[in-house]
């Protein structure tokens, strides 16, 4: 350690040109560009493959031509049948997967940051369970339609968020631990309600509908669904990204964050509600889909570090890539096997997660 320096703002001229910090700064910019760029390329490829594969196979060239025509760039002739399949069936389904995956990846990384715990997932406050109750009620009452089902699910999610806050406020300690405990209790309670509704399902068909919803599936998603989820997701992404540097500082703990200029209580409340609504909006159109929100932030943190200015958008992109790929896999499984999208995300996500746990344990040990 050198002699006492003068740690005043009036000191020092320029840095040495090759300072180690300068290099690490450049590295940070390169990591950011490479990660986000790479993920965008991955997403485009995964989306293109998803649109091209299916019972009616559409060659990649035709996919590009069809999409280009919609953007006003005629590239060549395609059959109307292909165009219809792409426009009415595959494209909306892929877009729903992108939006839902992005919402879950983002909500997962926000929840993990807020709770300072890499095991937090988007449904930690009970929103997914609340959405499930809403959806199951809609299905058993026979009211489920393209619009009613997501609306009922979202209403369930909203009520749950309200309940979490109401109960936490009543307990007078609005600390995070309280929110977590209330979330655990609500998850258990709402899970029991869902089980009761399942046990008393009026008929075989609603039972099937319920099981499908609870496992999460993107079958028969239309432009209507895209419209339902587009605005909430875009707004949520924009709003959470605003707080990305605050999230970094909040990981130093409440005291350090507040004395570094973060209004911890307010930021936390805003982000909890935002992430919960984002999750609610996503599962409302897709059903409950696990592991996307848990795994995506982990992978990004491992390859690009914990800075939320990169972590948030990258987790959203990776969540989208993951869900689009899982949904394509679910669709393309050979004949006798049928798996739902949510089952594939768990089947693929759980082993990946285990590997990550082993890997990170080893590298920190």
């Amino acid at each position: 350690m050198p002699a006492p320096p003068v740690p005043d703002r009036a000191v020092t001229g320029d840095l040495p040109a090759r300072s180690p910090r300068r290099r690490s700064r450049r590295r940070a910019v390169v990591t950011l560009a490479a990660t986000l760029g790479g993920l965008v390329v991955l997403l485009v490829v995964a989306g293109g493959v998803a649109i091209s594969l299916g019972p009616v196979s559409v060659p990649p060239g035709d996919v590009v031509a069809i999409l280009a025509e919609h953007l006003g760039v005629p590239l060549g002739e395609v059959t109307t049948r292909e165009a219809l399949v792409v426009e009415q069936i595959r494209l909306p389904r892929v877009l729903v997967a992108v939006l839902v995956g992005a919402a879950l990846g983002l909500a997962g990384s926000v929840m993990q940051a807020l709770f300072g715990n890499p095991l937090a997932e988007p449904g930690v406050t009970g929103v997914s369970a609340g959405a499930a109750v809403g959806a199951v009620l809609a299905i058993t009452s026979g009211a489920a339609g393209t619009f009613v089902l997501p609306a009922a699910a979202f209403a369930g999610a909203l009520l749950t968020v309200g309940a979490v806050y109401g109960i936490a406020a009543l307990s007078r300690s609005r600390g995070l631990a309280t929110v977590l405990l209330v979330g655990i209790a609500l998850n258990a309670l709402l899970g029991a309600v869902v089980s009761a509704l399942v046990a008393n399902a009026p008929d075989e068909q609603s039972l099937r509908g319920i099981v499908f919803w609870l496992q999460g599936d993107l079958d028969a998603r239309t432009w209507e669904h895209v419209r339902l989820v587009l605005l909430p997701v875009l707004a949520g992404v924009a709003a959470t990204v605003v707080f990305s540097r605050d999230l970094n500082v909040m990981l130093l703990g409440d005291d350090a964050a507040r004395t570094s200029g973060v209004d911890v209580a307010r930021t936390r409340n805003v982000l909890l509600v935002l992430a919960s609504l984002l999750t609610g909006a996503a599962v409302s159109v897709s059903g409950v889909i696990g592991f996307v929100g848990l795994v995506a932030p982990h992978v990004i943190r491992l390859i690009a570090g914990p800075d939320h200015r990169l972590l948030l958008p990258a987790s959203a992109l990776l969540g989208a890539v993951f869900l689009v790929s899982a949904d394509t896999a679910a669709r393309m499984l050979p004949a006798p096997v049928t798996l739902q999208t949510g089952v594939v995300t768990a089947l693929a996500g759980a082993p990946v997660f285990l590997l990550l746990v082993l890997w990170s344990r080893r590298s920190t040990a």
Partner: protein
Amino acid sequence: MIVVDGLRVEAGKSVILDGVDLTVPPGRMLALVGPNGAGKTTLLRTIAGLHRPSRGRVLLEDRPVHSLRPQVLARRIAYLPQDTALSFPFTAYQVTLMGRHPHMGRFALEGAADHEAAEQAMAATGTTRLADRSMATLSGGERQLVLLAKALAQDAPVLLADEPVSALDLRHQLAVLQLLRACADAGRTVLVVLHDLNLAARYCTELALLAGGRVLAAGEPAHVLTPAHLHEAYGVRAVVRRDDVTDSLTVTALETT
């Protein structure tokens, strides 16, 4: 300048601080000393705006700290907590840069000035070689030095440090206290919680001895560090002598009473 005026702080039903008055002008370095549980941390946190007093107030340049927005307050007061848990693997340099948070706009990236402040703070605390290490892999003392670097990078006229040398070796204890001393000499207001009374007497022009949530004595070391005060605060029999080498007071505790 920090003025603490008739401060009373309660938590639940217990009174933690009562009737605390203190004034620390710019350019001074005040050591808060006192036994475990005396209320040192609570006092520092209240000055940092983290605790709302139930009576009295803390004034920063004549304005109550509780009326200031966190960002405004953080530009004026930097606070080094007693311990900090960090659950995600930020590097030491990233943590130091976080000290620049209150100076940056919401969408701004760190500019050259921010990087300069962070590099300088790391150089000053001798942590430059740790810059690219993950905070999780640092020793307790190294972590404390990095968090001090973060507080310095914050570049605030008031610096509050809660036991900044408790995890440090001999050399780093001296180095950190010299550094804080230099901050005060450069015109900042420094409040530091210390357990080592000898270091406190050597580096600080003023001491405040806290016991049971009250200020037992405050002022220059010779006034505060008396056998009677030490007996009352710590419950020990102690002798206080002037050390020829450092020309400051030294305390030797002989036995508990």
